[in-house]
């Protein structure tokens, strides 16, 4: 299964958004083909692949969608492929030679879906995913149960209800069905008005069964709010404040920013926007993304929005710098983040040369602009921190530490300069399209090998090319090529190479054991742990072009 490495790379960099070269549809199709290939190869491995970390949200959600709605296969110890129905658990009995473990595997898959993916993906993104199920007409008992448990039993439900009302309404309506959703809204209202005495069996069956530690009245309030039933006694402070803010503009302060601004635009146009943006209470309710978005308009209004750059990833901080300028504060945040990422980075070469493609195509498309160059710079900065010596080279005339990508792609010259510094390893970060002149780098690398320059050339690609099947585009035959999404990808790089050995059923089992161990944060059903304990351990040893430590 050689495309496992390609799959993991794709999960880190591939999205449903257009790149400089490929349309969104082309990107989506090639990614879906890759996912289907791995799901058909081994369903369990497919779900456990999430343990690699560094997968982007789009791919995490695609994995959960496929686990919930697509059939798949597992490879048994007999080496044969066994079919697994959509929404059903993997047939562990076949694989491990004893019955009864299926339900435990199913439990584990559910936990992976909820705790590893849904809990960690931003809620607007997750709600868009749920909304896509409605469009794609995807629904089954398992998906309904998981969605209802996830939403209704969540301690953050009130905050979500306030901010993401339409998304939650769509998700709940899809899980319940539109007619039942209307009925449950009515029943929840009656429950609140009657002080909790009016409990209909439908409420029990479709709501209270899923609420976990939350209280019945809190969940009924959220349902009423989500479905627009506001004439009920709200005890939840945010809901009560919202209802008051409909008539009293002073109550806008402290509501989530987008909600406050929506109400202001609709009902209280005389309240200046800057009052809301500048309010500490409103700022406390802003998401990280909102703060970034608001920086520019806030500056125009003469208001400062406090920004916690420290909580963002390195690639995001660099993108923020491109958007807002690389002030001292941004540069400090970059430096701090590089230090913390470096502490976790297993790649610690002695002398590395990093070549960064700064050509026009590294700018990216409008909806993901400056993403490729930000990824490239993040790797360069990380290597500066982790390597004993790191020299940076660019393909164009770069004077700035954070250059704007422009011009053509002359990789050969930059790589040649990199080899002149006599490094042990050369990292070339490029999207893989050489045009001055295509093929020259390959000739130069061959010439370098002939004169004894044997330092490996590793190509990191921050984007995938759908025209080469969602893979990365290699610039020279003799390069190692890997997809990277940022510093996190480097951390999981070594583990990716283990996937190459997944063809052997024995190694596959060992790999699953290894991945299960890396999942972290979720309880592994005892029966599965017991079964996997019998598998051999994967030994991680240094090898290939990298000097890597596992921890």
């Amino acid at each position, binding site marked *: 299964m050689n495309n496992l490495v390609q799959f993991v790379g794709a999960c880190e960099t591939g999205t449903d958004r257009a790149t400089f070269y490929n349309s969104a549809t082309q990107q989506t199709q090639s990614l879906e083909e890759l996912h289907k290939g791995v799901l058909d190869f081994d369903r369990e491995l497919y779900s456990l692949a999430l343990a690699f970390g560094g997968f982007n949200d789009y791919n995490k959600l695609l994995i959960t969608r496929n686990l919930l709605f697509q059939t798949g296969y597992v490879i048994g110890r007999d080496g044969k492929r066994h079919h697994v129905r959509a929404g059903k658990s993997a047939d562990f009995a076949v694989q491990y030679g004893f019955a009864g473990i299926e339900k435990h595997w199913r439990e584990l898959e559910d936990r992976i879906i909820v705790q590893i993916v849904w809990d960690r993906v931003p809620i607007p993104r997750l709600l868009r995913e749920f909304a896509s199920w409605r469009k794609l007409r995807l629904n089954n008992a398992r998906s309904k149960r998981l969605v209802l448990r996830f939403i209704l039993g969540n301690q953050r439900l009130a905050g979500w209800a306030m901010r993401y009302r339409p998304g939650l309404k769509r998700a709940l309506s899809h899980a319940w069905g539109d007619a039942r959703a209307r009925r449950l809204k009515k029943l929840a209202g009656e429950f609140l008005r009657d002080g909790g005495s009016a409990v209909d069996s439908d409420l029990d069956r479709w709501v209270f069964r899923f609420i976990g530690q939350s209280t019945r009245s809190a969940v009924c309030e959220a349902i009423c709010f989500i479905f627009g039933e506001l004439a009920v006694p709200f005890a939840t402070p945010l809901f009560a404040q919202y209802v008051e803010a409909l008539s009293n503009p002073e109550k806008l302060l402290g509501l989530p920013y987008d909600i406050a601004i929506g109400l202001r635009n609709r009902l209280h146009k005389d309240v200046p926007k800057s009052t809301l943006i500048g309010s500490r209470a409103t700022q406390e309710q802003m998401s990280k993304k909102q703060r970034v978005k608001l920086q520019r308009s806030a500056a125009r209004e003469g208001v400062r929005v406090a920004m916690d750059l420290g909580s963002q990833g390195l690639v995001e901080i660099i993108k923020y710098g491109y958007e807002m300028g690389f002030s001292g504060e941004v540069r400090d945040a970059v430096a701090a983040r590089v230090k913390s990422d470096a502490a976790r980075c297993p790649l610690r070469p002695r002398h590395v040369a990093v070549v960064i493609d700064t050509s026009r195509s590294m700018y990216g498309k409008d909806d993901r602009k400056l993403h490729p160059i930000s990824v490239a710079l993040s790797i360069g900065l990380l290597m500066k921190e982790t390597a004993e010596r790191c020299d940076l080279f660019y393909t164009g005339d770069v004077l700035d530490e954070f250059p704007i990508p422009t011009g053509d792609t002359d990789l050969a010259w930059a790589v*040649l300069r990199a080899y002149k510094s006599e490094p042990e390893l050369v990292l070339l970060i490029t999207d893989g399209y050489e*045009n001055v002149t295509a093929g020259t780098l390959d000739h130069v690398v061959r010439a370098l090998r002939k004169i004894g320059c044997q330092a490996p050339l590793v190509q990191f690609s921050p984007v995938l090319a759908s025209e080469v099947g969602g893979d990365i585009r290699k610039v020279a035959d003799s390069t190692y090529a890997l997809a990277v999404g940022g510093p996190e990808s480097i951390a999981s790089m070594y583990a990716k190479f283990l996937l190459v050995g997944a063809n052997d059923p024995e190694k596959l089992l060992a790999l699953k054991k290894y991945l299960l161990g890396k999942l972290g944060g979720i309880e592994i059903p005892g029966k599965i742990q017991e079964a996997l304990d019998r598998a051999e351990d994967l030994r991680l040893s240094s090898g290939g072009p990298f000097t890597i430590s596992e921890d």
Partner: protein
Amino acid sequence: MSRKIKLNLAEILKGKIAGRAQVAGIMEVIPLIPQDAAHHSPVFAVPTRHMFLAGNPSYGTVVVRNADSDRPLIVPTNAAWVTKHRAQDHAVAKAGLVGAGGTASYDNAACVQASQPGAIPPDLHQFQILPASLRRMDKDLAEQKDFRKFWPNITALNAEFGLGTAGGHLEKLFTGFAKELLQFVAEFESLPGQVGALIIINGKLVGVEIAPSAEYWESVWEPLIRYSYGPEALLAARKLGPDGVKSSAAARPRLPETAPRSIEGIEEALRTLRRQEQQRTQEIVTKELDTSLIFEVDQDLTAVDPRTGQTSYTLASCYEGFVGQVVVEEDYVLYASLVSSTRPPKRSIRDAFRFLTGM
């Protein structure tokens, strides 16, 4: 008798500097940069932002509205609207000049999607540009008022691409070879300030493209490289066959086979290679510089240039040597979209593509 303008390629390229050639497979693109600000004319609207397809009142007629109320618009030569709507895709037969905020109706446009009924709804649609081989048309065809006039040529082109049943459906060529055509966009990058390009395929100059401004260029570059010259390169590779493509690549300058003995030696070899590449492309272009072209004036337009006041622009067409249109302001060519009139003969595309790109 129509008014005529005589221009050679050197005059068309006046005021532009050639940048470093970008090369992939048998195709080369030489970027053109204005030599100074005086040769950069941002006084025209930008097609991707301002060229609204205002109507498709009957088959063979398209109405274009210039949504820029301050600047005139040059409708790019052979702009095509291949849309996802259940409507007959159309293309214009020439370029056009539309005054600021104005509307122009082109009744010599034609359908590029045979047997599809329906009119394209008005909108700012994404546009394409006809494949270079379809752009090679004589005056009669260009001016003929028949919405079916492109179908025979599209059918022939599809057949050359192995799409024998596609008939007069241009969209089938664009979708059938989407991946291959996309790669041409990937291979060639615009430079800052670029306003044009010379396109060389298999050592021959096949296209001269000049835009009035960098902004305008950005908006036409992808349709040109992907839909106009991409198919042309594929056809040329087909004509050459795998061995021909290999020998064409081998004929280009390359690093010497006898390897240098040091990095400095490789550096020197690379410098020499760059010089040789530059000389080679210069020779290809120089051969054509004196070629005299006769243009027939199609349209005059007077507009306000904020820098010079009232200015007259002339749109003219050429049908021999190179086919296409230029827009001239006095003796300065500020827009040109010309394809050489030599057409590569027929032959299978996909295999050729592999050799063309090494994929």
